[in-house]
């Protein structure tokens, strides 16, 4: 019977083409929207992870308690051996020591006197080791505006906006003034190798990016680092896995309350990110649910209309003596087929468009001017396993339910009046 129904659908385009197109469009929009929302929410998380939070972060307990102040006097020491241990204990995670620091950047004139000066926030990370993933992680190559990436010790990057404010160019000498790990004044010379535009207003205001070894020299932090960031396999933040890893690490020192004990926090356990991660989860679910519900109504109506449109056909079939149950069943089978076909086509198209947005992104830099939060200026979709079956909820079930509802009318038709209806 399925073969018979399938033939009917293929031959009678009015029964298949439009319903399939409607279902496909609905499913495509559902899949695309879900991937876009997941990507948008995830992008903010990943941006924060790459620049400052990591998916996981190891730091001392004292540092973790006062993280907003970046207390490098409470930094981790013997970092090379700690990183080795982390690599052994968590083989799937990429670990990168970082030093965040603050201070002043001073540009001297030809006499060595201060010409211009401005407050800076700095990131010290591995820039000089060949193949270091940090350059890609911060997207430095693409962010470069002038000059080149640091290739030698002592070279640094400044944000383009900041370099213009200080009136310095690649090749110029600049001096960092800040505090060492021990609280002494740090005065350290760098050569500006290039300028970058990170695409984040908050970062572009006054950022200095230097190799971690240079920062260690400047801040008297031999083999030390404020934090060691961990990035999960696959490059995407998964809260459940991250929290599990932190529990595994922290259970090694349960009773140790010493300020210098290393502790691990997941991204969601750092500052306000917890609120954001839970908000992202619930918002993503709510927005998707609302959209799926709306699409379900549309497709349900499509199914309903499809059923009503076949009022005459049903009448003839009843007049010819076909059983009401049989007609009802065949209409449901047909709607299942249309639902499956439409959902499959819609999912394929939805995934294709989502992939395009995932790969090329949508540039929203124009509306991000003046923003103080760390948000990406290019929004990308993110295809997740859910997207492969999510479209079937409105595509298949709503269409079938719509047909089932409209089909109830079959049982209300009176055979005696059928010919009169058909004559009309």
């Amino acid at each position: 019977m399925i073969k018979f129904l399938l033939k009917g659908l293929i031959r009678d385009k009015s029964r298949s083409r439009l319903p399939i197109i409607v279902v496909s469009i609905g499913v495509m929009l559902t899949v695309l929207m879900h991937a876009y929302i997941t990507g948008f929410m995830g992008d903010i998380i990943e941006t924060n992870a790459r620049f400052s939070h990591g998916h996981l972060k190891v730091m001392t307990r004292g540092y973790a308690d006062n993280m907003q102040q970046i207390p490098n006097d409470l930094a981790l020491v013997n970092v090379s051996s700690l990183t080795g241990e982390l690599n052994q204990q968590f083989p799937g995670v990429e670990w990168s020591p970082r030093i965040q620091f603050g201070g002043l950047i001073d540009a001297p004139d030809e006499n060595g006197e201060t010409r211009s000066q401005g407050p800076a926030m700095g990131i010290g990370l591995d820039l000089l080791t060949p193949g270091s993933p940090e350059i890609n992680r911060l997207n430095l190559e693409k962010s470069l505006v002038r000059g080149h990436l640091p290739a030698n010790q002592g070279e640094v990057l400044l944000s383009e906006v900041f370099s213009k404010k200080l009136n310095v160019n690649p090749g110029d000498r600049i001096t960092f003034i800040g505090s060492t790990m021990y609280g002494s004044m740090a005065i350290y010379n760098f050569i500006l190798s290039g300028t970058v535009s990170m695409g984040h207003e908050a970062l572009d205001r006054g950022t200095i990016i230097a190799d971690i070894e240079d920062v260690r020299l400047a801040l008297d932090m031999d083999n030390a680092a404020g934090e060691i960031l961990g990035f999960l396999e696959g490059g995407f933040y998964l809260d459940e896995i991250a929290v599990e890893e932190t529990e595994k690490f922290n259970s090694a020192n349960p009773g140790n309350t010493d300020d210098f004990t290393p502790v691990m926090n997941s991204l969601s356990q750092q500052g306000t990110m917890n609120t954001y991660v839970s908000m992202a989860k619930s918002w993503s679910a709510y927005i998707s649910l609302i959209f799926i519900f709306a699409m379900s109504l549309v497709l349900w109506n499509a199914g309903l209309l499809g059923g009503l449109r076949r009022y005459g056909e049903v009448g003839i079939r009843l007049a010819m003596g076909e059983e009401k149950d049989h007609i009802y069943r065949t209409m449901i089978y047909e709607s299942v087929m249309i639902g499956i076909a439409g959902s499959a086509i819609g999912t394929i198209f939805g995934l294709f468009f989502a992939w395009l947005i995932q790969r090329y992104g949508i540039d929203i830099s124009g509306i991000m001017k003046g923003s103080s939060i760390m948000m990406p200026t290019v929004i990308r979709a993110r295809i997740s396993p859910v997207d492969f079956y999510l479209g079937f909820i409105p595509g298949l079930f709503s269409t079938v339910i719509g047909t089932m509802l409209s089909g109830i009318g079959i049982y209300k038709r009176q055979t005696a009046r059928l010919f009169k209806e058909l004559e009309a």
Partner: protein
Amino acid sequence: MIMKNILILTAVTLLTSGLAGQNAEEILKKVESNVSSDNRIFESTMIIHGTRTNRTITAKTYSVGDKQSFTEYLSPAREQGTKMLKLENQLWIYSPSSDRTIQISGHMLKQSVMGSDLSYEDMMDDRKLTEVYSATVAGEEVIDGRNTWILELTAKVSDVAYYSRKMWIDTERYVPLREELYARSGQLLKRTTLSEVKMIDGRWFPTKIIYKDILKQGDGTEFNITSVKFNQSIPDYIFTKAALKQ
């Protein structure tokens, strides 16, 4: 009768408080004449008891009155050759590793000197206490077997790092033995303990000072004056920016 008693009590209170106020000013003047001089050269050791390690920094300081001072750090290796020059209300620091002379101003003055419990602001504010604060005697106390007056100082000018201070002054030698520095809100910011008071060139001089920044972690900073010479001949070029790079 009751009214008479009240009047007598009020008169006595006013009289004693007035006398105490006057005494406090005199005490402060005597303290200032004890610890200040036309010029001095001293060598010091600063032991900074940090959260993780203790660091010892040695330095040699030349100063003339309360307007000019020049300090050269002698050790450890990282700080060696770092120099600081104070002229009036300006402060410069020279870093030999970067060959830069930086003027310390604005919020940088609040920063710690070499990671100690002293800020640059503390070093800068050398004005006489009697010029900046009005003082009253709040009581007496015995500290380490020495009788002291407790002086409460309240700022009478606005550009002052600490709104109020509490000082314990040795009644015999006129040197402070303890001091507490407060913000306008009443929050205790720093505590100083002075000891090892020695007679040097006819004046009593505390040679060991322990500073504790209450808002800073660590166990404070111990400042020991290892040698001090008063009224020396100091060449004028010492107090120039050119001397920083020499």
